[in-house]
């Protein structure tokens, strides 16, 4: 018996009930973003080259872990 039913098609909507955040929500992007900004400010204010380079690295990690839906402007600004 063919179990397919065209009339029972439902369009995709997120399954998490009551608007709860996903249990495995990854906060790496946010943490790396913040740490990168801190290091970049340190590098700028205290003129420490290694801080600036570390900030670039953290921005790269944040970019790699980011989701597609995340605001690209924020990520680009963290690179700057």
């Amino acid at each position, binding site marked *: 018996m*063919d*179990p*397919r*039913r*065209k009339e*029972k*098609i*439902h*369009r*995709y909507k997120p*399954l*998490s*009930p*009551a608007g*709860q955040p996903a*249990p*495995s929500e*990854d906060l790496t992007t946010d943490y790396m973003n913040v740490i990168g900004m801190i290091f970049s400010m340190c590098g700028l204010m205290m003129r420490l*080259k290694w801080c600036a*380079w570390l900030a*670039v*690295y953290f921005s*790269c*990690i944040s*970019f*790699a*872990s*980011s*989701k*597609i*839906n995340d605001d*690209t402007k924020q990520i*680009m600004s963290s*690179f700057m």
Partner: protein
Amino acid sequence: MFLSEKCMMNCQAILLFHLLALSCLLCGVYGSNLDTDDNDFAEFEDFQDEAFEETAPISPPQAEVKQDFDDMNVAEDDFDDGVTIEVEDWDEFEGSPNKKEEPKITFAQVPHHLRPNWDSFVLELLILAGLVVYFINFFLGRSKNQRITSMWLEVNRTVLDENFSLIGDDGKLDIENPGFIKDAEHLYSLWCSGRVCCEGMLVELKLLKRQDLVSIIQYMLKPKEDTIQMTVKLDDMDSFVMCLAKKKVASVFSKDMTDISTYCPERKSAEKLNVPSNYLLMSEIGEASTALIDQRVVSFLNKYPEVIESIHISDQYSGNKVPEEGAALTRLPSTEKVVIVTLSLCGRNLEESIEASKLVTNLVLHLVDKASRLRLTREAKVKAEKNRQKVEEAFLKNTHALRAEAAAAKREEKRRLEKERILAEEDPEKQRKWEEKEAKKEAKRKAPKMKQMKVRA
């Protein structure tokens, strides 16, 4: 495709920006170390002054020069400029014979970093090399994850085509890109719908972050595997909650999952179901778990003991427990009837694992059909209903107690403010009257409440 192209373009833009930034940085480094005097060549002035050898003193043939200039004057007169140049002070000219000091030859002090010496840029080169390696890994990791996704879809395509009318929903009104939706470089989801017994199935591929070098190093220290979670939302099922999971997963579920922690907090060994010993069973209604963990499931679990992480079937699914943030829930969280199967892909043998995932997909659909058609006995139904009623009553009681507590706190606060206001007043008469009023209220509140009964003679 569009999303991956966008990412590729983003990466390329970032690489270009880095190159530009690096070149600006190098220019800035060069520029900042030059003398900031108005004279850009001040650094080399002395060098030039002193390095040149003293030539033979030039005897100022003043008379000759003067005459030449006179001639020039004559020539210039023709132009009616009337300019006469008289050279009187020869000291202004270089190599003037009036200077009797011998020039000192010294070597110019050229700053160290302007010398073509790459040793001073070793750190920067190393860091840049690291960045290049990171980005190469990014592209490689991303492409591997994409390959795994497309491999899974290719292997399971037949099964999905046979069971669902809609495979892949990109969220747009007219579906332009059926297939997996890319949530991140390591997260993909596929929505399938149009089948009996269920609203739809969401397949989530939670892959390793192969695109992040730091994560790869983390996985070397703490190994992790790619997981696939298949969540099917059922139309209808009887009331029961059960979960068969590996030991580690079971301990997490029994603490974090709302329905499991509420309805089946006990973890029992699943050996009596002939399931491998690394699995634990959490079940509200015994006959439901016995009926669902049938021969087909058992044989799969015994053949592939490492593949399935958990099988969770529930009519009260509401996700993880929400941590209380002070304000209590005003109503019970909304629940769904679901079948959730989580499996892991063995990293050592990825192709075989993906082939095995096809069997898991078939197993999931088998469980969906069985869970929808399963009808519990009367006793089991009564037991399930009782459990649900207990939970609801406990929730209302808890809410009531919290509400009463909040009301009492509010009342106390009001009294305290009133008392402070009265004490602040200077009139003792008013204070006495207020205190009498409060005492009467307190006595009335504490007195036992009795109903008046009218008795007819």
